[in-house]
């Protein structure tokens, strides 16, 4: 490694190019992954605002209603349940309409429950199966789903997912091309020295190992710096990110995990490109 840096001494621009190429590509990839994860979390936040209503039978006894609510609360898909008694419902109507109904007015409103489900269950198919499950209870008269909202979310989410995957794939292809071209540039710059070594009888393996280790270590240093920089940035703006996307600690840790995967992926790509960049020319 010492010698490759000495040979590279002739072209600090080249070693700088290799270093900053890997640094920038890694930084951009990590930030892209983080941005997509944040958008995904934001989607979940918006999705979790969608809720459904259970309308109980008009004459359903409160004991039975409580029983249904208890059972529903134990379901895997439930996020929160808010039981609205007929009296509360009447109060809400009065409040919303701005009228005061007379005391002798008989309350026609049934018991109902406002249900929020976990974001990952907010899909048309899942929601319909939840609805059917709820309708099996004898005291439940109807379940109101925000069908149009769910379809709209699903549609947007699909678009976002395919766009982000396509964008990442495109970026990775460009990244591989840039890594390969930088590797070739590195090799071509040292070509004359390589040919000298071959004319003097040095083995191809030794020469290849020397160049590969040089190129890989320069690129690796760039990737490490990018990882440290992005981690520093993320930690620095942690509060802002968490407020922006309502991230919990587990979401934050998984974002760090995905960033680490992106860094490891770049190290792997760098290694592969190093293998292909150094050619065994015969002289």
């Amino acid at each position, binding site marked *: 490694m010492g010698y490759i840096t000495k040979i590279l001494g002739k072209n600090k621009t080249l070693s700088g190019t290799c270093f900053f190429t890997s640094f920038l590509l890694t930084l951009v990839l990590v930030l892209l992954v983080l941005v997509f994860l944040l958008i995904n979390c934001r989607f979940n936040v918006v999705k979790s605002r969608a809720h459904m209503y259970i309308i109980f039978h008009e004459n359903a006894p409160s004991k039975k209603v409580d029983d249904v609510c208890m059972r529903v609360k134990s379901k895997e898909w439930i996020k929160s349940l808010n039981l609205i008694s007929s009296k509360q419902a009447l109060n809400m109507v009065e409040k919303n309409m701005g009228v005061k109904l007379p005391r002798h007015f008989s309350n026609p409103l049934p018991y109902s429950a406002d249900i929020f489900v976990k974001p990952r269950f907010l899909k048309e198919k899942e929601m319909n199966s939840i609805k059917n499950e709820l309708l099996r209870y004898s005291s439940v008269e109807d379940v109101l789903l925000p069908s149009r909202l769910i379809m709209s979310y699903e549609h947007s989410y699909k678009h976002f997912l395919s766009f982000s995957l396509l964008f990442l794939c495109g970026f990775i292809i460009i990244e591989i091309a840039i890594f390969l071209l930088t590797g070739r540039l590195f090799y071509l710059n040292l070509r004359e020295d390589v040919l000298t070594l071959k*004319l003097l*009888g040095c083995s191809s393996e030794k020469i290849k190992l020397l160049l590969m280790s040089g190129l890989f270590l320069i690129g690796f240093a760039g990737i490490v710096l990018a990882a440290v920089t992005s981690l520093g940035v993320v930690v620095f703006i942690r509060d802002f990110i968490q407020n922006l996307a309502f991230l919990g600690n587990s979401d934050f840790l998984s974002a760090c995990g995905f960033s680490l995967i992106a860094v490891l992926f770049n190290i792997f790509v760098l290694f592969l490109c190093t293998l292909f960049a150094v050619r065994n020319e015969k002289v």
Partner: protein
Amino acid sequence: MVEEELVLLEDIYKTYDRVNWVLQGVNLCLKKGDVIKIIGDEGSGKSTLLKIILCSIYPERGRVNIMGADTSELKKYEHILLLRQYISVFFENFRLFEYMNVLDNLLFINKMRGRKKTAFMPLIERFLSQLDLRDVFKKKVIFLSPGEKARLSLAMIFSLDAPIILADEPFRCLSPSSVGKVIDILKGDFCKDKGILLFSGKELSSLEGKSFVLNGGKLYGIYNQDPG
């Protein structure tokens, strides 16, 4: 193979364009202890001959035998590289590692050739002194004068301690005193068991050895070395 034969060229023909023959029926035998000088003008085919011995190019006809191995039978490139380990070459344009210093150049090439430190360090010490490179051993090659580069290149080929030494115009950039020092090394014990093949544009009468003239692709022997 006769044991002393290091390089054997038999009836070598070479052309680049299939019209003009650069080499025509060249025969040469370099043995242990031999000093052979090949004299020729520019474009006479000296570099082609050197490349053929290095297996960098192949002749159209003829047989090249290096250290007993027929080069036409070497199928793998790695075998050619292995064979080159028996050869030290002085290139006309030096082919040094420009941004390394003098000492690093010597250490680097020896390490890359897989030689042991105990084998090459004493030689490096010796030739740094003998070729007056001690004062510049930390200087980068790019800052050396052509004469210093030539001396470094010579120190490099001597430190490699190969049985065959090929040198293309080794004295061109050297001062008379440096030429004398190099000739002393070539005449001395260090080169006693080596075969030395020198390519030059003019005759070097101060160095004993067989002289040949390469002209029109053919090699002619010079029998009378007396300048008078």
